[in-house]
């Protein structure tokens, strides 16, 4: 399947695409917050006021694509936690007011499927609608679903996206779990740090997908995923993915790896980037957006622009320069917490 359009609200200026001309936001705090547009003009004001951040970012990046592509039929959304801010606000009311009379707004906004539902509602899309909450593999779940829908021949244009919001609450929980660093960021390229923990990010990235196209940005050829693997599983999955797509190791010219600055997580990326694909260029993206569960959607947003020949992003993301070959076959490899691992094969 092919990407024909995309829109993102990430911790960089992706919405107005300043990031493509070198306007990078240098984050030096504990949380990489998304740079949001004002949304005015396409989300009704009354509605916008009630929307939580996840819904707002989701609708804010998904709806413009629906407006530009009226023939989109279905909406597929990935979000591990949905509207966590509203969720805990509602929970706080339950506890603080001892289950008193509560207003349902936070409850309605917090349910993960309210993002896909709102996009369908505002975009008047009565086709397929789904929300995946499968942690670090939720976005990959949407991609495979879209691929299946196209194979089944019942759809010809879909909107697919991944959204995660940071709230104090979600940050607290993940911080207590030891996922994040305890010191603010000291250097721009922090991915080589020898410390534990990542920096927390957030964002929304949406894509318009079609099964066939002459004018497209790049092609999502295949993907695979595994949970709780060992290194042999990863090697096997890589080999299977390449062979069923008629490719060899040498055909992969670029890998986009999910290095997040957490020394505990590097070995998996080192293995793919240094041992398996020794001759591929290595790109990173989490120094731009931080770590969050559906961030492979951000990786896909950046990679799509690399395929358009964006040189500024190319040098900003390049970790290992190993050849002069043009970008043709790229593999995104990401894992969340070393538990959920995924590969996305993207071609020119």
């Amino acid at each position, binding site marked *: 399947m092919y990407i024909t359009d995309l829109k993102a609200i990430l911790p960089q200026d992706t919405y107005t695409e300043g990031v493509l001309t070198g306007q990078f936001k240098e984050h030096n705090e504990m949380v990489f917050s998304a740079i949001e547009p004002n949304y005015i003009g396409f989300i009704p004001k009354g509605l916008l006021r009630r929307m939580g951040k996840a819904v707002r970012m989701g609708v804010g990046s998904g709806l413009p694509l629906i407006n530009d592509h009226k023939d989109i039929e279905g909406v597929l959304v990935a979000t591990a936690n*949905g509207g966590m801010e509203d969720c805990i606000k509602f929970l706080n009311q339950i506890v603080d007011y001892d289950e008193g009379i509560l207003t*349902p707004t936070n*409850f309605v906004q917090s349910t993960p499927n309210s993002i896909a*539902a709102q996009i369908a509602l505002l975009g008047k899309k009565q086709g397929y609608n789904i929300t995946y909450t*499968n942690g670090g593999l939720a976005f990959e*779940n949407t991609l495979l679903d879209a691929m299946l829908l196209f194979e089944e021949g019942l759809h010809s244009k879909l909107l697919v996206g991944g959204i995660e919001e940071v709230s104090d609450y979600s940050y607290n929980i993940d911080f207590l779990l030891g996922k994040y660093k305890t010191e603010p960021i000291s250097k721009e390229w922090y991915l080589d740090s020898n410390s534990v923990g990542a920096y927390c990010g957030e964002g929304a990235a949406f894509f318009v997908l079609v099964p066939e196209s002459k004018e497209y940005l790049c092609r999502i050829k295949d993907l695979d995923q595994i949970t709780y693997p060992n290194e042999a599983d990863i090697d096997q999955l890589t080999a299977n993915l390449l062979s069923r797509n008629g490719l060899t190791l040498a055909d992969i010219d670029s890998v986009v790896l999910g290095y997040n600055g957490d020394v505990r997580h590097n070995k998996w990326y080192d293995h793919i980037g240094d041992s398996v694909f020794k001759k591929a260029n290595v790109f990173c993206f989490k120094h731009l957006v931080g770590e969050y569960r559906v961030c492979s959607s951000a990786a896909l947003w950046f990679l799509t622009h690399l395929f358009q020949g964006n040189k500024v992003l190319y040098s900003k993301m390049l970790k290992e320069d190993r050849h002069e070959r043009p970008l043709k076959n790229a593999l995104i490899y990401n894992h969340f917490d070393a538990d959920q691992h995924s590969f996305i094969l993207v071609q020119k």
Partner: protein
Amino acid sequence: MQRVYITGLGVISSLGAGKEANLKRLCNGQSGIGRASIFESKYTESLFFGEVNLSDDSLKEVTNNQDSVDLSRTALLAFFAAEEAIEQAGLSKGDLSSYRTGIISSSTVGGMCNTVSLYNDANRKEKPSTFIDSYADAEHTMRLIKRYGIKGYSSTINTACSSSANAIMLGARLIRSGRLDRVIVGGSDALAKYTVNGFNAMMILSDEPCTPFDANRKGLTLGEGAGYMILESERVVDNNRVLAEVIGYGNASDAYHPSTTSPESIGPTLAMQKALALGGVKADEIDYINAHGTGTVNNDETELIGFSNIFDQPPIFNSTKSYTGHTLSAAGVIESIYCVFSLLFNEVYPSLGIKHPMKGFASKANETYLSGIEIKHAMSNSFGFGGNCTSIIFKKA
């Protein structure tokens, strides 16, 4: 295109732990709805619930998790139902760890049923609770993956009340496409202050046990439970293990309102139409519908409008939520399992609590235990908040 067979079923609900207990009470027309004795909430005095009659400790015992300190009730319910389904299908360790075996689960509340510890952890009130890593919607899926060593495709879905129906649909599609040989599909939801207060704030909870399709219905009754099905490809299954076949499914968005269905029943009608088209069956070939039938004024009315959009004469239908309450994400799969019971035993269970059938509709819900009738095709409807509508058609093996 591979055919999709059901080879294992597992269920836990307010009707009991396991298929037999559930079946027995369905046949006897005995509801599981009553006053909650385990779930703690201010509303246990004023509202009725479809509670699973086992404490967390008892659930830990029956699922061999005695030493666990961090499993949510959602995960414990999931363990029980998944184990029963896997056992019935006779899946070996090797089957389970094959790259071609997957799991698709669903939940709406996930580990958030531990309301107080989530409150403390999210607000950093105290040192981390033992549940700190258990709140995610996908928590129970991850636990099942770890327990059974599943290495293939995994997913967790949350489309509110249609969640596990969508899990069945996705599992069937992955098998049909040849990507998987076997897949565990279903969902789990425990009673939670979060959902009880949420639905209460929306003012759609009944202060009496729910009475779906009654003219004077007052809203829904929340329940809890889990259900799992094992789906297998015709490639790997031998016919004597087949319980039923998944032949059709459809999903559509009503795109009308965040929490009510359109008066024309657009989403439900589209979902049923898609399922019929894919299943290659005509409307009059459907012998039985397990309706979504929540007992809210809006749902039951629009669902019947949907029926009249599709059927000249709607088939026999009931709402088994009158037994279990609304088990949210688990409702789709639990009710699908009840559909398989109807296919296997040629019987339909009485819809409970109807005093006065709804006016203005030609058909009314089945109120008696029917046996010895030929049920060849059964349809299960699940419609979720946000307008997410899914319909699935099962065929007798």
